């Protein structure tokens, strides 16, 4: 399990349930490394500000993380974390490698509204 203060998605079933129950979801699929930790930290901060968005993480090296690793939108990605933004269960944006707060909020504002 990732050592963050975010909600952890631990299985394929939890992932499906999450998408069913939440309109706007940002999921960061990564490890506890230098490219991923800054993204988790940004998400932890934004949780209080973007109340319409569900912020979660998922461990990259688990079998069930194939729900992220096998998405067509991550083809060509070669840097963790893989970050996926879902609206009504559909992928609306996917990014690879480290992103800063400004980059993340620009996507959240564009895809989910301010």
């Amino acid at each position, binding site marked *: 399990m990732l050592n963050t203060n975010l909600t952890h998605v631990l299985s394929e079933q939890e992932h499906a349930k999450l998408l069913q129950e939440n309109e706007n979801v940002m999921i960061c699929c990564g490890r*506890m490394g*230098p*490219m991923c*930790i*800054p993204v988790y*930290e940004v998400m932890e901060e934004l949780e209080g500000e973007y109340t319409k968005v569900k912020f979660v993480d998922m461990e990259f090296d688990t079998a069930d993380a194939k729900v992220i690793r096998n998405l067509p939108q991550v083809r060509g990605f*070669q*840097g*963790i974390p893989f970050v996926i933004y879902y609206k009504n269960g559909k992928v609306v944006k996917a990014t690879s*490698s480290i992103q800063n707060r400004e980059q993340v909020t620009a996507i959240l504002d564009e895809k989910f509204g301010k």
Partner: protein
Amino acid sequence: MENHFDLIVVGAGAAGLTAGIYLSRAKVSTLILNEGAVGGQMVLTHEIANYPGVESISGYQLARNMKTQAQKFGCVIKSNIKITNLDLEGGTKSVEVNNKEVYTAHAIILATGGKSRTLGVPGEDKFKGKGISYCATCDGDFFQDKEIIVVGGGNSALEEAVSLTKYASKVTIIHQFDNFQALEHYVEEAKNNSKINFIMESKIIEFAGDESLKKVRIQNQATQEITEMIVDGVFIFIGYVPNTEKIGGKVALNNYGEIIVDKNMATNIAGIYAAGDSIAKRYRQVTTAVADGTIAALSASEYINNIKKELHLVSTN
């Protein structure tokens, strides 16, 4: 005054967090403003095995411990902000951040550290995470049986090139000079590895591809000849630069852009101190950053006490 503190620390790496711990514990009200994630370069380090008293710890955990310790003493930490204006002159210093909030203080400690140097050539941003990486331990396994390039000629470049041969079928080291800056044993280890070959006196001038990186254009520095190379990935390790671009022109810097300080970590401006990797010094480690942070905090604390005494004298006269 909600936005007034005795002292503002700019940067929450090892140096800034240490200053925060010392100052808050001494009841000096302290705000730390940090661009990016708390912990700075410590977060980039998977394992720290040379921090005295702690046999082995992840950089992330050490950073978290320092952050919690500072907050327990009352230190306020704001991360992921951007400083838009710094006014370092006069008795009251001010810092404006990107949400237009302005913070003031009697003194400031600059602890902005350093960051990885990037090549700054076309395609580098586009293919970050799609073939270009700055972290071998993070992304090495995406390149199992693939052909990759490592850019750089220092210790990190050569050490990481060797470690990447665990995954890659071939590693080409591209270095801009005709000799390496790394320690001899790193060079020997790379030279003795059959998967590693070298392109010297050359620079990557462009990255190209479609969904992911496919090829690079390389220019020989001696002949200016340009060649193309098909490649699956490029890892860049070309050293660190001090984060002082926003401070330049305000405090005195040396030719390398490092902040010049005296033995008390004081800069050329009264009430402005600096600590950690952003100052002019030879050895950059967590222990040295922590030591600088301590000295800066103690010096600044004394400065603030004197200022407060003066202010008190003025108000009672």
